């Protein structure tokens, strides 16, 4: 549905998007994850035909965004970071206007507006002026605008920004319900959002793709580099030595600041082997009291930080 190849966008000397390639299949939800300024918005703007790329190609619904911009725009619904609203219009009038500029014939407009209003739960706000709506409702009108013409592809730039937790959940449900019949790209810097809504994730940092995979794979892939947390009653120094001697441990961190005198330790282990039983056996052997031992899978948050900060560390010396 969407094919992006070697997409590059340079603003003068700054390269905002650097040889980005990915594809999105029909009906899929792709999450675009990255810190602010990573190039998410720029990529989306190129896909929506708002701005041209410096080099590389992007195709949406089979149309090239540069050559067939108008055709691409016909197949796309787009919610920019700030919802593009006319404050003096009523919600229904606004959606009707959007349908008009999307070239939807008159006989279909009424039903489309009804449908979008129903999906975004705006029933009681239909005749209200947009300027009188709260931030959350405005965001929903923005969403309604992106899907009102029933486009093949919906591109959402940070769709849950500015919403309260309840609204965030509603919006996520809405996005999930749209998948299948629509292909969706959404950007966010909120990690749980990606693991909850997206089929696949593109992690982007400094204009480059750091990883592309399903949220589950990304999590398990890095889980193999295991992290173990334990709580024991033991002398600090020997404990440190003991953990250090176990083959496969890469980093040991001890914390003796607990009020009850227990030690907590975090051990990072090399991928491929499970050393939990080894640790348990050794501690028991010493006669220390083991209260807790558990493997912690790295969350998407850790992966994200790892990928993006690693990248920064590599990039710095070369600059």
């Amino acid at each position, binding site marked *: 549905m969407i094919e992006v190849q070697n997409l590059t966008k340079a603003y003068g000397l700054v390269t905002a998007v650097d040889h980005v390639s990915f594809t999105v299949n029909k009906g899929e939800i792709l999450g675009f994850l990255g810190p602010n300024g990573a190039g998410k918005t720029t990529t989306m703007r190129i896909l929506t035909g708002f701005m041209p790329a410096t080099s590389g190609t992007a195709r949406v619904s089979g149309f090239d965004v540069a050559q067939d911009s108008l055709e691409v725009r016909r197949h796309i619904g787009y919610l*920019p970071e700030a919802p593009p609203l006319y404050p003096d219009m009523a919600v229904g009038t606004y959606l009707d206007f959007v349908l008009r500029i999307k070239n939807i014939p008159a006989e279909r407009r009424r039903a489309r507006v009804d449908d979008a209003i129903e999906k975004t739960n705006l029933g009681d706000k239909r005749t209200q002026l947009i300027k009188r709506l709260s931030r959350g409702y405005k965001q929903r009108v923005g969403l309604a605008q992106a899907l009102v013409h029933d486009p093949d592809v919906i591109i959402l730039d940070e769709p849950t920004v500015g919403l309260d937790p309840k609204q965030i959940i509603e919006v996520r449900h809405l996005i999930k319900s749209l998948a299948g019949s629509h292909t969706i790209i959404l950007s966010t810097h909120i990690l749980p959002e990606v693991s909850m809504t997206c089929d696949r994730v593109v992690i982007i940092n400094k204009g480059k793709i750091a990883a592309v995979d399903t949220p589950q794979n990304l999590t398990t892939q890095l889980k193999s580099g295991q992290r173990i947390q334990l709580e024991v009653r033991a002398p600090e120094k020997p404990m440190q030595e003991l953990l250090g001697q176990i083959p496969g441990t890469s980093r040991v961190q001890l914390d003796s600041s607990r009020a009850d005198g227990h030690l907590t330790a975090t051990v990072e282990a090399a991928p491929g082997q499970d050393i939990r039983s080894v640790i348990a056996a050794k501690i028991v052997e010493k006669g220390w009291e083991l209260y807790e031992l558990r493997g912690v899978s790295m969350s998407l948050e850790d992966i994200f930080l790892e990928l993006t900060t690693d990248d920064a560390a590599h990039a710095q010396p070369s600059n």
Partner: protein
Amino acid sequence: MRSLYAIYRKEMGHYFVSPIAYVLVGLFLFLSGFFFDLYVNAANDQAPDAPTWVLRAFLGFLALVFLFFLPMVTMGVYAEERKRGTMELLMTSPITELQIVLGKFFASLTLFGAMLLPTAGCVVFIWLHSDPVPPFRIVLSGYLGALLFGGSLLALGSFLSSLTENQIIAAALTFAAFLVLWAIDFGTRGASGPAGQVLQYLSVINHYDDFTRGIIDTAGVTYYLSFIILFIFLTVRSVDSMRWRRA
């Protein structure tokens, strides 16, 4: 065509649903009515051409008021859309820049027409109270001239509005540009020599004078139409350039 109409319709809604149109039209009519009254009282009752004089003075006065009012019509046309981010909606919809620009231009021209039309009441007044009545072609050519002259100012003002995100800056730029146009005309009036004549030909106001005399000069019509087309073209380029900017 449908897309162009969608933009036109939206702009008309913007003008006429909000108080903008009513305030502008209201103030414009108040001023023109007030000055019409002044001209009628100042006219020499005994002179046989007094009605013609009043009509011409009134049409000339209208041009001056346009210079003050039209910056307010066009200042927000693009600046406001850019500031609100709605330009991004328009530019990611299947419509061309030309459709956007023309839709907006025709809407501002319609608002201008709504300002101009009620002044016909003053003309009717002249007709009812003068004998002999002034030549009707002055009315026709005068209003045609006003439409062309106003259209030119609107095209220029819209272009200037597309250069900035700030309505106040857009209004100030437009107002300054109008003043310069007026100053060129004022400064070169009656000037001789090639430089003065070139500037007189280029003066937006000078051509309007011909129209208020009842002369429809193809040079004047061509001049205004070229002026409008030039600035519509520049606005299209300016809107297109928004795609290339970083923001």
